[in-house]
C-alpha cells in the first residue's frame, strides 16, 4: 500500500464510516422500505413491489403536495432572486447605505424559520394582525382576511414569509457578486453606446451567472426542504392547502405510521431535488466563460 493511501485511509476512514452509517445506509434502507408495506408499529412487512409508488402517483394528497412543492420551487426561483438582485443593484448605486444595510439584514437570515413563522402569524392574524390593522386604518375593511385560514390565500401567505427571508440571502450574495464586477467593464459598455438596460442584460447578468447558479441552487434546496416554516405556521392546513412534500412525509410517517409509503414519497422528493440541481448545474456550466 502506498504511504499516501495509508494516510488517506487514516484521515478519511472515521468520518466516512459515520457518513455511511447516518446518510448512505439509511438512504439505501429507505429505498428498500419503499418497496414494502412496512409500518412504524413494527409488524413484519411484505415486499409489495412498486405499489407504494403507484399509490403515491394516484393518491390525491400526494399529487397535490407534489404540485404545491413544484409551484413553491418555481416561485422561489423567481421572486426572491429578482427582489434580491434589484435591491442589491440599488444598494450598490447608493453605497452609503450598503454597509449599514448589509449588517442589519443579517438579522432576518440568522433567525430560524420557526421564529420567522411566529412573526408572520402575527402579521397575518385576523383580529389584531398587522395587515388587517393597516387595511382597517385606510378604510379597506372589506379586504380584511384570515390570511392563513383562508384556503385561497394560505399558501401564498406562507410563501411570502419564506420569500421574505430568502430574498435577503439572494441580496447578500448578489451584492458580493456585484462588487466583484470591474467597473471598467460597465464603463466600456457605456462608452460604446449601450443603454442602461443593455448594460444590465449584456454585461451584468452574464457576469453574475455563477452567483445566480449558487443563489438558485440554495433557494431550490430550501424550497424542496421546506418543513419548519409550514409546520410552525399552518401544519399543512387549512385542509392541506399548504402541505408541502416534506410536511406530507412527516404526516404519513407519524400520523399514519406508514413507513413504506413515506419512504416512497421522500424518494420522489429526492429525485425531484436531483433533477432541479442537475438542471441548474448544467445551466450554470453552459454559460460560464472560464472554468
Amino acid at each position: 500500500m502506498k504511504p499516501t493511501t495509508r494516510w488517506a485511509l487514516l484521515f478519511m476512514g472515521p468520518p466516512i464510516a459515520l457518513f455511511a452509517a447516518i446518510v448512505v445506509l439509511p438512504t439505501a434502507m429507505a429505498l428498500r422500505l419503499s418497496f414494502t408495506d412496512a409500518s412504524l408499529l413494527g409488524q413484519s412487512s411484505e415486499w409489495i413491489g412498486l405499489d407504494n409508488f403507484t399509490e403515491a402517483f394516484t393518491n390525491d394528497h400526494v399529487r397535490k403536495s407534489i404540485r404545491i412543492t413544484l409551484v413553491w420551487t418555481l416561485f422561489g426561483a423567481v421572486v426572491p432572486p429578482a427582489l434580491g438582485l434589484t435591491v442589491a443593484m440599488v444598494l450598490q448605486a447608493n453605497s452609503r447605505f450598503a454597509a449599514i444595510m448589509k449588517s442589519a439584514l443579517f438579522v432576518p437570515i440568522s433567525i430560524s424559520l420557526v421564529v420567522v413563522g411566529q412573526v408572520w402569524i402575527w402579521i397575518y392574524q385576523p383580529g389584531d394582525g398587522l395587515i388587517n390593522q393597516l387595511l382597517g386604518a385606510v378604510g379597506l375593511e372589506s379586504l380584511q382576511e384570515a390570511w392563513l385560514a383562508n384556503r385561497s390565500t394560505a399558501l401564498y401567505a406562507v410563501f411570502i414569509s419564506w420569500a421574505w427571508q430568502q430574498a435577503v440571502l439572494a441580496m447578500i450574495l448578489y451584492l458580493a457578486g456585484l462588487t466583484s464586477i470591474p467597473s471598467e467593464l460597465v464603463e466600456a459598455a457605456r462608452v460604446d453606446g449601450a443603454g442602461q438596460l443593455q448594460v444590465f442584460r449584456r454585461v451584468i447578468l452574464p457576469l453574475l451567472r455563477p452567483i445566480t447558479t449558487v443563489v438558485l441552487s440554495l433557494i431550490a434546496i430550501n424550497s424542496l426542504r421546506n418543513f419548519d416554516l409550514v409546520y410552525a405556521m399552518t401544519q399543512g392546513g387549512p385542509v392541506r392547502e399548504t402541505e408541502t412534500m416534506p410536511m406530507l412525509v412527516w404526516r404519513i410517517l407519524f400520523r399514519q405510521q406508514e413507513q413504506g409509503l413515506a419512504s416512497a414519497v421522500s424518494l420522489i422528493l429526492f429525485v425531484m431535488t436531483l433533477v432541479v440541481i442537475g438542471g441548474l448545474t448544467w445551466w450554470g456550466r453552459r454559460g460560464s466563460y472560464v472554468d
Partner: protein
Amino acid sequence: MSTSAAPATPARLTPEGRARAVRRRVGMVLIALFVAAYLVPVAGVVSTSLKTNAEIARRGIWALTGELTFANYVDVWRTANTGRYLINSFHVAIPAVVVSIAGGTLIGYALAKFRPRGGTLIQLVIVSGLFVPPQVLLVPLFTLFRDLDLLNTLWPMILIHSAVGFSICTLVMRNFFDQIPDSLRYAALIDGASEGQVFWRVMLPLARPALAALATLQFTFIWNDFLYPLVFTSARDDVATIMLGLLNVKGQFTVAYGTQASLAVIASIPTVVIFFVFQKHFVRGLLSGALKE
C-alpha cells in the same frame, strides 16, 4: 444641507443628469420600502417581548403604545424550561459543529492532497448528501434510534448533524486545499515533518478563514434546526432544544404573546451575534462551496 439637495434650477441639468436624479430618488424609495419590510417584523417581535401580556390583550400586538418591561423575560425564564432549552441547543450544536468541520476537513484534505484512488467517487457520494432530503433519512433513522433506545436523548441530533455536515464541509475544504500548492507540503516533508504534522502545523493554520466560514454556517444551521428535535425528542420537554421549546411554550401559553416573543428573542440572540461577528466569513463560505476563486 442645501448643498446635497437637488439643484434649484432643473433647467441647467442635462437630460442625463436629470435621469440620474430620478433614478436615485426611485432607488431611495425602494431602499426605504425594503428597510420597512424588514424592520417592522423584527421590531414587532422585540417590542412585543417588552409589553405586558395584559397590555397586548387590550391593544393588540402591533399597537405603538405601552410601557416597556422586562417582565416577560423573567417570566419565561422562571416558568418555562428556558435555561434547559438553551443548554440542550448548545449541547447539540457545539459537538456537531466541531465534528462536522473536523471530518469534512480531514476528508477534503485527503482528497486534495493524497489523491487516493476512487477519490472522485468518494467526493461525489459525500457531496450529494447535500441533496438528500432529511425526510429520506428520517424514515429509517427513526426506527434505528428507537431500537438503540436513543429517542428522547440529544444523540440523534448530534450524530445526524455531524454526518450530514460532512457534505458541505468536504466541498468547501476540498476546494480550499486544492488552491494550496503541493510544493508547500513537499517542502515540509523534506524538512522531516510527517504527513500528520504537515496537516496540523502547516495546512490547518492556513485554513482558518475557511474554518470560520464553515463554523458560522454550521452553527446557524444546527441551532435553527427544528425538524430533527421535533421527530426525535418531542415526547419530553426537558430534552427539547430551544427551537422545539419555542413550540412547546407556544402550546403552553397560547395567547401570551409577550411570553412567546421574549423566548423568540432569546432563541435568536446566539445566531444573530455570530452573524454580526462573522458576516464576511458567511458570504465567503456560501460562495466558496460552489465557486472556485
